[in-house]
């Protein structure tokens, strides 16, 4: 019983981390209709930004998250403005190709710049834990989970209640009408992509604190984020949080009951099931 409870908690905490990773991907996908295959590579870059801040400037990885997010926002804004805006109205296939290319380029640039060495962001408290009865709560994951929840609600409120958020939603719903109301799409797209990449950067900082960083972590993270966005649905950030938690719990239980080698089978099996049963995600509106 204790074991099951511990496994469930592990799953929830893992799910929180998953949710932060997928938030940016879901936003960009929902609004710009770009499935950003380079999303994981941006998470990787964010992790390196956090690592440099921590290693060379001594900035705590959690306190440094806003800086990482801001740096990555600029990178994202520039990428959209300079590159992706050129193909934003092109068929989906073109955006897939260009973001895939971007992923390859970023990965290899990262190896040239940072080498293939492993890095970890390892502040003294990163391995600490809180013990409640027989259950152990890893501190770093708990903090990452808290940040995931805060970011999700902040995103939700931002989209609902701010002028920019409303403009983003309006553009996602109807571009022509949004333009008639004075939305400038090139800037707005770049803002949206920037926010998405800023979130990816924050996820990278958290990831480096609980796991390890090398230039090649991106592709697997993109796949995971993609699955979460589909499972949760693209309509609102809460869906992503639910999708992340759902996936985290399923994977943890799969390791316990089916075997560790099948964790990925379970998570992508769930993805297929969701696509069959609820094609617009668990929290998505059914057509």
């Amino acid at each position: 019983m204790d074991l099951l409870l511990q496994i469930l908690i592990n799953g929830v905490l893992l799910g929180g981390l998953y949710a932060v990773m997928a938030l940016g991907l879901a936003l960009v996908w929902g609004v710009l209709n770009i499935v950003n295959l380079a999303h994981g590579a941006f998470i990787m870059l964010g992790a390196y930004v956090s690592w440099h801040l921590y290693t060379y400037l001594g900035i705590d990885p959690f306190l440094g998250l806003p800086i990482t997010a801001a740096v990555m926002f600029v990178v994202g804004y520039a990428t959209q403005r300079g590159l992706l805006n050129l193909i934003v109205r092109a068929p989906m296939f073109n955006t897939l190709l260009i973001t895939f290319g971007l992923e390859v380029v970023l990965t290899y640039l990262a190896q040239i710049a940072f080498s293939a060495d492993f890095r970890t962001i390892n502040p003294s408290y990163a391995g600490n834990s809180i013990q409640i009865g027989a259950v152990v709560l890893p501190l770093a994951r708990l903090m990452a989970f808290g940040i995931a929840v805060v970011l999700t609600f902040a995103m939700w409120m931002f989209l609902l209640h701010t002028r920019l958020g409303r403009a983003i939603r309006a553009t996602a719903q109807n571009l022509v009408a949004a333009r008639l109301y004075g939305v400038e799409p090139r800037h707005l797209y770049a803002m949206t992509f920037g926010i998405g990449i800023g979130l990816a950067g924050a996820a990278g900082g958290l990831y480096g604190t609980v796991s390890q960083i090398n230039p090649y972590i991106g592709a697997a993270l993109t796949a995971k984020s993609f699955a979460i966005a589909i499972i949760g649905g693209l309509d609102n950030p809460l869906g992503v949080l639910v999708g992340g938690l759902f996936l985290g719990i399923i994977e943890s239980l799969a390791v316990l009951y089916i075997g560790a080698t099948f964790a990925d089978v379970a998570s992508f099996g769930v993805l297929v099931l969701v696509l069959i049963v609820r094609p617009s995600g668990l929290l998505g509106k059914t057509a």
Partner: protein
Amino acid sequence: MAMSNRLISKKTLIAAASAAALAFVANPAAAQDIVLGASVQLTGPVANTGRYYRDAYELAIEKINAAGGVKVGNEKRKLVLKIYDNQSDVNLSVRQYTQLVSQDKVDFLLGPFASNFALADSAVSEKYKIPMVQGGGASDQIFARKFKYIFGTLAPASNYFGSTIDMMKTLKPEPKSVALLYADDSFDVSVADGTRPKLKAAGLNVVMDERYSTNATDFNSLLSQIRSKNVDAVLVAGHETEILNFIRQAKSLAVAPKMYSFTVGVPSEDFRRALGTDANYAFGMTAWLPSADLKDRWFGDATKFEAEYRTKFNYEPDYHAASGAADVEAIVQAIEDAGSTDPAKVRDALAKVNFDSLYGVIKFAENGQIDLPQTVIQVQGDKLVAIQGTKGPIHPAKYPMPAWNAR
């Protein structure tokens, strides 16, 4: 305009032709070179280990050439390395080896890193009957197919934990329950298959025997089970990234068995640096430690190799690098023994080599694999300490591992 273009192109043609002629004249000397071909992971997820092979091949070839080269019959010939980056992609590596033998016409092959690569690539050397000496694949599967052109200088995967289990019997209090975790690839499955009967023979109780998917990043569920079952000793056969995650997550879940040991990572400087003090107490194994007792014809001995390698590449070599350098030396030795660069003759000479090297005695069993004992090592403080070798204990182990909050 068109006229002058044609003139230029005529001039260019003449220039090109004379350059080709010059190259042709210069060629006979170059044709003497013995070309060694390899496809190695220079980029991609295992580039971190792949670099040991590129660097070791380069250093060994440079050293041998500086000493005059390889003696074939009455003439001395230089070695040349032709290396491709397989981007950590097995399929690409098979294509590159095919290209090396069929188009580049290299004389002999050096190996890639990792068992799954060597397993696939050795099919190429077998098909084209070009000997491959590889120091990157330890899986018993590679040598179980009665191939005649593959030779390996890593100790058999099935015996990686052998010396560790011997050591476990000397520890007080003796560990009783064991968890065996392994990744689902060729090397790690071979390790697990070889370890199971040894654990049984040692009278240890295997309470967990779990295969996990390669490149798994989350070990929290497995670690929670280790804690719940109160496992004494954890043996993990996996890759460096997984083992890094495993140790970090063990700390964050406060899971501290009496001991844990890992097939890879512990001997590598970069791995220990990434973990910092959290690497402490981790056991591992290596078939090679730089010792002045390991005499070498080209480098002098293993410590000199270690020093030269470190100066040239700015990082510490581990057994992967030593194994890679030994592969070059094995080919050279076999060419000299055969007195020829004929692939079949060199293959037969390789089967008979028996010489001292910086890596140990190079001698292949009938299946083509070397048999070297594994020395148990442990991270103690910021040092890597040899715990137990073939001749028994070397230094005392730090055991049992203290709880994470008691360090």
